[in-house]
């Protein structure tokens, strides 16, 4: 059981990170559908860096930088040139799939050392809980730290309120004098960084090799998670664990021969997302929206 819980947590972390990053991006009013692409570039960047510098921690930095690089490309087009965000995001994923395939070609067939587990003094000796919660790798701790920080940031800090203001009504924020474009740039790059680290987690911990398209659609699940969490950070943890848990439950069910068709279990997370969406749109009709009101709308500062 313990091993299964650890597997669920490990599977959830890339989703958790990528979704958290996207949440911040979307809170600023930018819809970046390039999460899958940013995760892929994070994965290839991390693997390349570890092969080169022979230290898995550089993989985290390289993954973050690769994600930021991709997010910058997206920002230039959507924020500065005001292109359509949906089209640009899709384009980014397609572009990154090709680019990482090219960049990753010399890395195919190579394997790297995994990120070590860090034991926290005394806490990791607690039976069961210690093994599950306090014998994780650096990225796992980091992802929880990021969630806590952004929860505080969005709710209680002034920059967080400004970010939300930009995402809800960029014209008003602009007229009050906040630099809408600059804030969106930062938020998008933060999203890219998180997605990059999430992608890096795949070769650094889950399966230490590179192969083309190895994220296999996890970026899209992360996008669904943001909606599922209705833009509230702690709910992403719940959502990621549900997604991860159902993925693993589906595999366990097969190994143990449960009489539930595995396809039905595979369907559950998406059903949950649709239900979450329905509830959210119900709330919108009550004029109490949780969706950033300017989400996906380009900002023209000449208006």
């Amino acid at each position: 059981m313990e091993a299964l819980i650890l597997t669920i947590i490990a599977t959830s972390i890339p989703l958790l990170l990528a979704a958290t990053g996207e949440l911040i991006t979307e809170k600023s009013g930018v819809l970046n559908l390039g999460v899958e692409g940013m995760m892929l570039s994070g994965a290839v960047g991390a693997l390349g860096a570890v092969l080169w510098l022979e230290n898995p921690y550089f993989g985290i930095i390289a993954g973050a930088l690769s994600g930021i690089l991709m997010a910058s490309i997206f920002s230039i087009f959507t924020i500065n040139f005001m292109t359509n965000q949906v089209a640009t995001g899709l384009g980014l994923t397609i572009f990154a799939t090709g680019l990482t395939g090219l960049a990753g070609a010399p890395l195919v067939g190579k394997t790297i050392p995994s990120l070590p587990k860090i034991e926290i003094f005394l806490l990791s000796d607690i039976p069961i809980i210690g093994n599950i919660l306090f014998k994780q790798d650096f990225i796992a701790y980091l992802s929880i730290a990021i969630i806590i920080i952004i929860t505080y940031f969005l709710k209680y800090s002034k920059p967080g309120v400004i970010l939300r203001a930009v995402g809800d009504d960029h014209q008003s924020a602009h007229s009050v004098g906040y630099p809408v474009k600059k804030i969106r740039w930062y938020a998008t790059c933060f999203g890219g960084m998180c997605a990059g680290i999430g992608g890096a987690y795949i070769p650094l911990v889950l399966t230490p090799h590179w192969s083309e398209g190895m994220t296999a659609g996890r970026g899209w699940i992360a996008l669904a998670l943001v909606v599922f969490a209705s833009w509230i950070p702690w709910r992403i943890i719940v959502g990621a664990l549900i997604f991860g848990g159902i993925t693993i439950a589906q595999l366990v069910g097969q190994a143990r021969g449960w009489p539930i068709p595995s396809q039905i279990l595979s369907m559950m997370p998406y059903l949950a997302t649709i239900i979450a969406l329905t509830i959210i749109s119900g709330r919108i009709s009550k004029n109490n929206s949780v969706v950033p009101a300017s989400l996906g709308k380009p900002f023209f500062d000449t208006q």
Partner: protein
Amino acid sequence: MIKFCMRIFSLVALSASVLFLLINSTFAGNQTKVGFVYLTTPGDHGWTYAHELGKQMVEKRFGDDVKISVVENVPEGPDATRVIRELAKQGNEIIFTTSFGYMEPTLKVAKEFPNVKFEHITGYKRSKNVATGNIRFYEGRYIQGVVAGLMTKTNKIGYIGAYPIAEVIMGINAFAQGLRSVNKDASISVIWANTWYDPVKEADAAKVHIAEGADILAQHTDSPAMLQIAEKKGALGFGQSTDMSAFAPKAQLFASINNWGPYYIRKIEELKSGKWNTGDGPDHWAGNDWGGLKADMLIISKFQNMPSGVAQKAQEALDSLKSGKINIFAGPLVDNTGKEIIPSGKSLDDGALWGMNYYLKGVNGKIPG
């Protein structure tokens, strides 16, 4: 007079051009144009890489006598039709389409180009100019079963399958036959990944198998993720399509290696000598070419990470399969619900293998769908 001169001139021009064409075709006549369509970039492991090695054997054997065009990364579906048509237009005389999903696109293009020969890998539909080729992958899985049965301590084998189709199911059943030939207490649990390729999911499935107590893992998916997990967690497993010992030096027991080269070479030789045919007949389920260990289309890599006694047993199984002493699907065969499939004295023919929709004794659970 002018008319007459014109006639002479055109006659000369005509004969000259015919002569030129003749000379041209005799010089270029030996150079056969060969096309390959790959599902992914070859990389250096797995399904497409095995085809790439086969293509390299063709290059080595024929040298300048062949001109090879390769198109990589062709998704199964309408894109494949376009790519195959383009290869046919460019004058390739024989085109190898190397994935199951190219079946309909290959047949469609073949109808438009009746003079071009097509070889579709692992399909079952043929036409006048479409032949099919396949490997008896299940023979390698029988040996995997023998090794697994001798090596397992928990008597639990974890198997990761891609899709519940006949090709994968016959592999699982062959594995079970090998397993039960040496160990009647062991059984196989199957997890369907519902994808040929998703490293993270394959890794998750491997972790779940190990958490459920399996100590030997087998896969019918494409990435080396399962072996990497086995390596990390101290379990053992088998490589898929190509030798994967670089990913798991301590975990790989052996790999069944797909060897397409001899088949490609033979088909190109047949084409050059005008003997190419689809070999179609009523008994040809998998196509005219369904070769295994005996035909060298399936190769077993070095036996490693096992005691010499086990390696010897594995070698014996390999030799007996090659000589035909072992018939993997000989009766009496009973499925895992106890129903008799075939009585003693009979054995399953190729057609019955391609219709397999049951697990044999030794496999747990039910086939989904």
